[in-house]
């Protein structure tokens, strides 16, 4: 996957969540966005996945401009899967329906196939017993797993994951890591925002550190995490418990 | 209930929307023939007068529950009403007339009483009662608002509107280009003052007042004051006049 962001600005009211972000990645299977809280990771993911249009600047993925044009963004979104930091499941639907509904309505599965496919994912993430619960009745990690299942169920070309393991225990984190490897093997491409450096290093081949709405450093994951070049990156990674 | 108020007060109920008998002037004060009558009566009885403006349908309940002492509201004496309240001696004779669309060729009430004819009456009035008893073949439409009934005739939505003489005349004047009026009454009815059943003392006082008021030319004076034009026109046309 080729990513190219040039002078991207995203303003919310007076605040510039992204303040001239430049990022060029030539070829990556899995890119990890790391950086301090409030730095702009989630905002970057929303722009890359075409959910929002940037206030200014250009975003090109695999040669395709994900710009101002609403229709192009909508077509692009059908090929991607997204896990939100706050999960954003539909509160009025059961966990199962949350996953099966898009399969049926957007990707043309028959109802039976949609449910079968969803069920196999629920099994994989050990959610068999919780399929019929509404999101408000699920634990934090269960919600997160449903969100991951919803995102990867339609076999999207690119998956955007916003802190997908923040509520998961080590066992389940390993399971998600496995799922990511599986996706990469299947020629899918992945962008993750994460605070877990160990997870970032294992999952991603490339890392980009974003702080205060700007790119601080980018490069191969091992290099950036273990031997960062810039002082800002060094300071950030010093505190890591799990490096 | 009736002894809850000071005994030197006479409360008369009327619906102030029946010109020129009961209405209000530009200053929103009660005025009209019945109001003058009530004033003369209260003077005669040596009581203070209060006039309550009550919709026609609320008059009899108000009298029965003691909220008013008398009804002077152009109320026709009927047998049914006489079961709920007592009536004084009649003070005015009138009858029902007909308003027709311009194109109509009906000449009398008999011409109207044919199947397929729609007849408008004002609900709860003697026109309503008459139609119920004598017009068996027509389709009856009940109106609360006489202006609406007149409009229906003007627009040809109904075939006839039956109401008392003065109202038909005044409504015809509003729609001279689209309606014609048959102003010779086809029945006889008379108006009287309503008194609560059992209140015989007041009933007798009212009756003696009416006798004296009539003999002293009180009604003629009221006719000249409020109905000068109508009196003249009715005389020209050869129709009987009220007083």
């Amino acid at each position, binding site marked *: 996957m080729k990513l190219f962001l040039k002078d991207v600005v995203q303003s919310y009211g007076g605040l510039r969540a992204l303040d001239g972000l430049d990022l060029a990645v030539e070829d990556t299977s899995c890119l990890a966005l790391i950086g301090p809280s409030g730095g702009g990771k989630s905002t970057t993911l929303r722009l890359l996945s075409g959910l929002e249009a940037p206030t200014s600047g250009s975003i090109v993925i695999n040669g395709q401009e994900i710009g101002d044009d609403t229709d192009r963004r909508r077509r692009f979104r059908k090929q991607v899967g997204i896990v939100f930091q706050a999960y954003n499941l539909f509160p009025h639907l059961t966990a199962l329906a949350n996953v099966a509904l898009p399969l049926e309505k957007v990707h043309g599965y028959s109802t039976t196939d949609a449910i079968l496919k969803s069920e196999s994912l629920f099994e994989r993430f050990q959610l068999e017993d919780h399929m019929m619960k509404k999101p408000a009745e699920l634990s934090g990690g269960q919600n997160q797993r449903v969100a991951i299942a919803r995102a990867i169920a339609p076999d999207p070309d690119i998956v955007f994951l916003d802190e997908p393991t923040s509520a998961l225990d080590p066992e389940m984190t390993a399971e998600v890591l496995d799922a990511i490897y599986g996706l990469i093997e299947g020629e899918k491409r992945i962008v993750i925002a994460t605070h877990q450096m160990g997870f970032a290093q294992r999952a991603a081949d490339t890392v980009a550190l974003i702080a205060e709405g700007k790119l601080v450093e980018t490069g191969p994951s091992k290099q950036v995490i273990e031997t960062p070049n810039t002082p800002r990156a060094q300071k950030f990674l010093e505190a890591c418990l799990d490096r | 209930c009736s002894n809850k108020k000071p005994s030197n007060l006479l409360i008369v109920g009327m619906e102030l929307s029946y010109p020129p008998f009961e209405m209000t002037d530009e200053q929103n004060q009660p005025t009209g023939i019945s109001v003058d009558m009530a004033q003369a009566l209260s003077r005669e009885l040596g009581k203070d007068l209060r006039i309550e403006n009550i919709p026609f349908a609320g008059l009899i309940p108000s009298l029965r529950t003691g909220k008013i002492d008398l009804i002077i509201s152009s109320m026709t004496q009927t047998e049914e009403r006489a079961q709920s309240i007592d009536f004084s001696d009649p003070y005015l004779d009138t009858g029902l007339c007909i308003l027709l669309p311009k194109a109509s060729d009906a000449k009398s009430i008999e011409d109207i009483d044919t199947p397929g004819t729609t007849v408008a009456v004002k609900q709860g009035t003697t026109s309503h009662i008459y139609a119920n008893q004598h017009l068996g073949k027509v389709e009856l439409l*009940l109106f609360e608002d006489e202006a609406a009934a007149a409009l229906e005739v003007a627009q040809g939505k109904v075939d006839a509107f039956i109401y008392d003489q003065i109202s038909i005349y005044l409504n015809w004047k509003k729609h001279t280009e689209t309606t014609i009026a048959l102003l010779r009454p086809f029945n006889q009815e008379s108006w009287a003052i309503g008194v609560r059943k059992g209140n015989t003392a007041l009933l007798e006082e009212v009756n003696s007042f009416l006798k004296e008021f009539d003999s002293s030319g009180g009604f003629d004076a009221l006719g000249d004051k409020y109905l000068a034009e109508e009196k003249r026109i009715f005389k020209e046309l050869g129709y009987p006049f009220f007083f």
Partner: protein
Amino acid sequence: MSFNSLFLEPRKGNTAKNKSVRKAVSFLVAILTLSIVLFASFATLSYQWNWEAAFRYRLKFLDGWFTTLKISSVSFIFAFVIGSLSTLCSKSRFLPLKYLSLLYVELIRGTPLLVQIFLFYYVIADAANVQNRYVVGVAIMAIFSGAYISEILRAGIESVGRSQLLSAKSIGFTEYQTFRYVIAPQALRSSLPALAGQTANLIKDSSLLSIIAISEFTLNAQEVNAITYSSFESFFPLAIGYLIITLPIMRLSRYIEERLRYDT
């Protein structure tokens, strides 16, 4: 049985067996309280009841009741369609449409139904040469209630959080699908109480159609009242007749509301 165990609702999770007994007893107490007030009031009134006269006109009541039922149910369907369309227009990016919908909602909600009936029947319908008063009556009630429903639905739609819309976008839903599967079910759930109230209002407001001589329930009851001079004897059947229609609607709405409850 103690006072508590009779009249206090058991706490959540407490599976007291006499739950339905409690409910019944308490309900009876409530009804009794109300009845006593009414009876005491009537007792001081020394009113001479005359049920026979009212009973003689039972067919008239029934006729009016059915007319009201028919008119209001047909009106409701159209009102819902009009209301939904107006809500849609109010969300349109084509500004004249948006403002037309705004004007519609505000003018209709802001002016008396009485005036609207008059204007619509004697002016607009007359110009359009629609003569059937029942058709016009249904149209007016639909237009009138539609404005209220439009506002109710708008509020319902706006109560759906932005994160839900983002989520719908993210799974590739079209605007229609987002509406159908995300907005509509949530908006409907949150609009349900207001919708039920509006339906009850529609049924009762249809009584104003008597002004154009539609012989609906209220008009007929008032007619009986006018003929027999027995106000209360015609107003009690009136109240009960309306309750027979409105009560099930309100109960149904509460039931569905309960069924569709979800936490956010």
